């Protein structure tokens, strides 16, 4: 570790307690180990469809959980496992969802891209890029309508900001002064296309003025800094009913999805970002600043790996949904077998 890096590290962790930093590290590590186990399961053919990993972006989900009050909502994208784990969803249910099992977070009907856990504040799970921005604005509208005091945090990738619903949802949020925070997780790539080819202006928050939003923009290098600045935006939404557009500059260390080998970037680029990986920096801080023994950190890691491996073992053994589960939750009235006697599946009245 060079002197400049260490000085910056010490400055960043000034005033942070050992317990808090250990907690942040543990929570981030839980997401990373969950995601690594998902990647292994995918490679073994246990998970199908698309699998988008959150590796590199964990600090954002952890900071978000820490600034939320009960009843606040996170609305996110198809890259959403990290939020589920951060908000307290059971890793067993998360893994079972990836495996398409009945015990999954949404009964095995959603898969990786459609996580929802309302009770814990995870309101999706949206896999059509950008189409959740108006929906999240609608949650914030409901908060304004009912006066429930809740804040909605709406996340999207840098690749989403060009699509229409983002503009329409933000326009409405600005006009109605909704209690919402829009967060762009700028992980440098819109799938395989770098920012310079997708953004007419590099600074995404330049758009905030057009919607009448406050804005903030920074590199995510630690949980505590992200927590502090997201917290300001959440308070602005809660107290003043003013939306904020936050751009979080971050990096995903894996490809866009498991089917993407990420050949569009160089090893040097990835290595450079690794130096700023909040998880790695936190580990470094724990070792150098807080002098946490390696054995303690290793033991923590082993416990987490065992928890996540256990979750995937549970998912592997869990039963698939019953055949009749496909009729559930289509209509509010109860099981739905189709609208015509001519198209109803055999064996149902």
């Amino acid at each position, binding site marked *: 570790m060079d002197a400049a890096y260490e000085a910056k590290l010490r400055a960043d962790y000034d005033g942070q307690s050992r317990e808090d930093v250990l907690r942040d590290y543990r929570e981030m590590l839980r997401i990373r180990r969950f995601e690594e186990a998902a990647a292994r399961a995918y490679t073994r053919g246990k998970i199908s469809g698309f699998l988008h990993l959150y590796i590199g972006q964990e600090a954002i989900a952890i900071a978000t959980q820490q600034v939320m009050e009960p009843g606040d909502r996170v609305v996110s994208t198809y890259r959403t496992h990290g939020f589920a784990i951060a908000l307290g969803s059971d890793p067993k249910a998360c893994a079972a969802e990836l495996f398409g099992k009945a015990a999954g977070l949404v009964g095995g009907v959603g898969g990786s891209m459609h996580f929802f856990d*309302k009770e814990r504040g995870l309101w999706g799970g949206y896999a059509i890029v950008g189409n959740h921005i108006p929906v999240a604005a609608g949650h914030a509208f409901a908060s304004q309508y*009912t006066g429930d005091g809740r804040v909605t945090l709406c996340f999207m990738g840098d690749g989403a900001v060009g699509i229409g619903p983002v503009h329409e949802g933000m326009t409405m949020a600005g006009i109605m002064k909704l209690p919402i925070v829009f967060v762009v997780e700028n992980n440098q790539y819109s799938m395989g296309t770098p920012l310079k080819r997708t953004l007419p202006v590099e600074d995404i928050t330049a758009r905030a003025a057009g919607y009448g939003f406050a804005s903030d923009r920074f590199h995510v290098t630690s949980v505590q800094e992200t927590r502090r600045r997201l917290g300001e935006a959440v308070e602005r939404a809660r107290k003043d009913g003013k939306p904020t557009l936050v751009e979080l500059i971050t990096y995903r260390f894996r490809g866009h999805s498991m089917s993407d080998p990420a050949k569009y970037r160089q090893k040097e680029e990835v290595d450079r970002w690794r130096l700023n990986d909040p998880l790695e920096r936190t580990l470094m801080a724990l070792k150098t600043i807080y002098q946490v023994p390696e054995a303690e950190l290793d033991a923590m890691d082993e416990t987490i790996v065992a928890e996540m491996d256990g979750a995937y073992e549970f998912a592997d053994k869990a039963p698939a949904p019953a055949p009749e589960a496909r009729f559930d939750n289509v209509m509010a009235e109860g099981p739905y077998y189709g609208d015509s006697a001519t198209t109803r599946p055999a064996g149902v009245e």
Partner: protein
Amino acid sequence: MPILQIRQAIRDAMKEEMERDERVFLMGEEVGYYNGAYKCSEGLLDHFGEKRVIDTPITETGFAGIGIGAAMCGLRPIIEFMTFNFSAVAFDQILNNAAKLRHMTHGQFGVPIVFRGPNAAAHMLGSTHSQAFEHFYAHIPGLKVIAVATPYDAKGLLKTAIRDENPVLFLESELMYSVKGEVPEEEYLIPFGQADIKRPGEHVTVITWGQGVPVALKAAELAAAEDVSCEVIDLRSIRPMDEAAIIASVKKTNRAVIVYHGWPNGGVGGDIIARIQELAFDDLDAPVLRVCYEDLPMPYAENLENLILPSPERALAAIRRVTYKR
């Protein structure tokens, strides 16, 4: 019994439901200060205020999505599209969010929302403003699709729609907002999935809905002059569909003609024919025919538009054909 226009019946339905349930609100372009592009919300802003009668910018995806997000929180939005042609801009919200969220969230959320507005061709509006959307929306599991042709049906079915726990597409007609009819003063609701026999008959079943209803009724009148008795069935509810009513009538008449707005390919008309041929094959004495738009984009020019639209004359020709009177 009071005589109301369809637009007044729609307004009264919304007003009554908003008075009954504080969670109900109306949102859309020009619904408030302008009193509705077609005056369906006349007086509602004055009565309920800006909190519950909400003007929006021209952002169909934006306010359709806001309605969906609000419905997921337990509110009961009525979203007005100035015309259903503009719902195409919000199609993804309806297809991927409204219709699917109950399913995708494993029942953690429901989306009790009404999308309403005029549908299908009006008069000389050109191809982008003359489309019938039931054929798109009836395709989608998770949605309900309603089309109304009388003030009585409009009020009773809209009240049911607002109370329904599912997303409902409620299709009106720009050309029919001024149609008058009796509407009871006392409260009533009309259940979904029940067709209404608008004219009983013996020889030919004419199945229709929405803007097709006056065309079918006029054709039945013309046919009666030729001693052909038509039974005109107004589906009212396209999804769910009153299949039993269709089949019972066809088993009686052994002939069917379907009169509706919209293109022939891939639409509700073909779906009805599929049901009839499977459920009443042995009862049919003639092929089931469709009278709908020609398979063409709608031109502005009046003479060309008239050629493409379903007319009483074209419907009569089909009735003659299935009765072998041509």
